[in-house]
């Protein structure tokens, strides 16, 4: 049986860990609330932006022969280069949060590799970037301090190359992979193709209703292109803020589990400590009694 001192030391260490994990959980809860609020406010913008794009794209798609004449909306059958952008956290200790994203990235990488498509992998977030560096997968672009502090300007700069290269025909599709916030308990993995924009979702009837809307014909396409750029930039930014919210919720959960585990451990260590103490007392008593017996 383990030494009394050893057990005592272990109990102390586990309770200290428990204090840390509990504090981390509280910090994450506070940060989650802020991140969630930001994501919620931002959703309003995305709703409106989607609405405007759907309206104009819908009108173009349904009223023009041959659909929309823009690379942003054109499906490419034989893609030769694609961009994959992933977002992970800068810090660990958040359960399977980062590894889920990494797994999804690896899966998509393999899919494209099997099809003989060249992939340019770009990453935001220290954990993911480090993982691919360690595995000697080449990263086209990487930023490591953006995912904990989402910033619209830096996010725009990051996605700019992809948009430009897509426009020049160097890249045929752009995907974003990130783990997003669903609710306090669950995160949802998003694998989104942001370019080319999916035209399926634009429905003619919805745009018919808006036929009162007046836009000058030559403006329509210019407006749409300008909007799509903003749409892609915004999607990138939203991936960042959604990812932060998800990261905090994942960490909160992981730390809660850790705190509970530490509690259980302290409990079983206490039992062990009591047993060891009782054993020591019994041994001492036997020694005294046998000493007395021998003196008789």
């Amino acid at each position: 049986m383990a030494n009394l001192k050893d057990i005592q030391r272990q109990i102390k260490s586990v309770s200290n860990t428990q204090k840390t994990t509990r504090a981390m959980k509280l910090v994450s809860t506070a940060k989650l609330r802020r991140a969630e609020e930001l994501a919620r406010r931002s959703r309003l913008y995305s709703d409106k932006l989607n609405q405007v794009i759907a309206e104009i794209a819908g009108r173009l798609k349904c009223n023009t022969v041959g659909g929309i004449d823009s690379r942003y909306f054109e499906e490419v059958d034989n893609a030769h280069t694609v961009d994959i952008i992933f977002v992970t956290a800068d810090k660990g200790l958040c359960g399977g949060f980062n590894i889920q994203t990494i797994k999804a990235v690896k899966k998509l990488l393999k899919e494209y590799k099997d099809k003989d498509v060249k992939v340019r992998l770009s990453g935001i977030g220290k954990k993911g970037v480090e993982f691919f560096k360690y595995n000697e997968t080449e990263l086209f672009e990487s930023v490591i301090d953006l995912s904990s502090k989402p910033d619209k300007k830096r996010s725009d700069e990051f996605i700019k190359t992809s948009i430009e290269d897509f426009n020049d025909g160097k890249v045929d599709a752009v995907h974003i992979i990130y783990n997003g916030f669903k609710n306090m308990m669950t995160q949802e993995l998003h694998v989104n193709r942001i370019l080319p924009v999916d035209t399926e979702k634009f429905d003619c009837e919805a745009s018919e209703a808006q036929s009162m809307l007046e836009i000058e014909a030559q403006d329509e396409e210019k407006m749409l292109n300008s909007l799509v750029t903003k749409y892609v930039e915004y999607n990138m930014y939203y991936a960042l803020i959604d990812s932060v919210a998800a990261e905090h919720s994942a960490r909160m959960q992981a730390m809660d589990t850790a705190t509970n585990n530490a509690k259980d451990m302290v409990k079983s260590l206490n039992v062990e400590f009591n047993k060891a103490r009782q054993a020591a007392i019994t041994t001492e008593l036997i020694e005294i009694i046998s000493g007395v017996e021998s003196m008789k």
Partner: protein
Amino acid sequence: MDTFKLEIITPNGEIFNDKALSVTLPGEEGEFGVLAHHSSVSTLLEAGVVDIEKEDKTIESVLINWGVVQVDETKVVVLVEGAVAIRGESESAIATALEEAKTLVKSIEDAGQAIASVSAKLENAAQRLI
């Protein structure tokens, strides 16, 4: 005079959502004003200043760096990317807003767009408030 509902939405939330008497917007082909019962139109906005005439006839200015506006008879929705509203309870709050606005102007200028008149307009807006 009739009013209409005006919403100005940025990626970080709404900065204006109230009734307005009129609004002047920096359109791609020049400034244009919108009153209630305007016909439906959608257009792009350039970097510039949006002047809102509120219900109490005071004017509020919002600096924007890009935007798109959707006008219909009862409602105007302006989607902008970066925006700073020149307003505040105290002089110092207005000064801070003006300072923020100037940073935004600088970032727009760095992007290569000429907006010489904007700075002067901002100063005027701030003067009006103080």
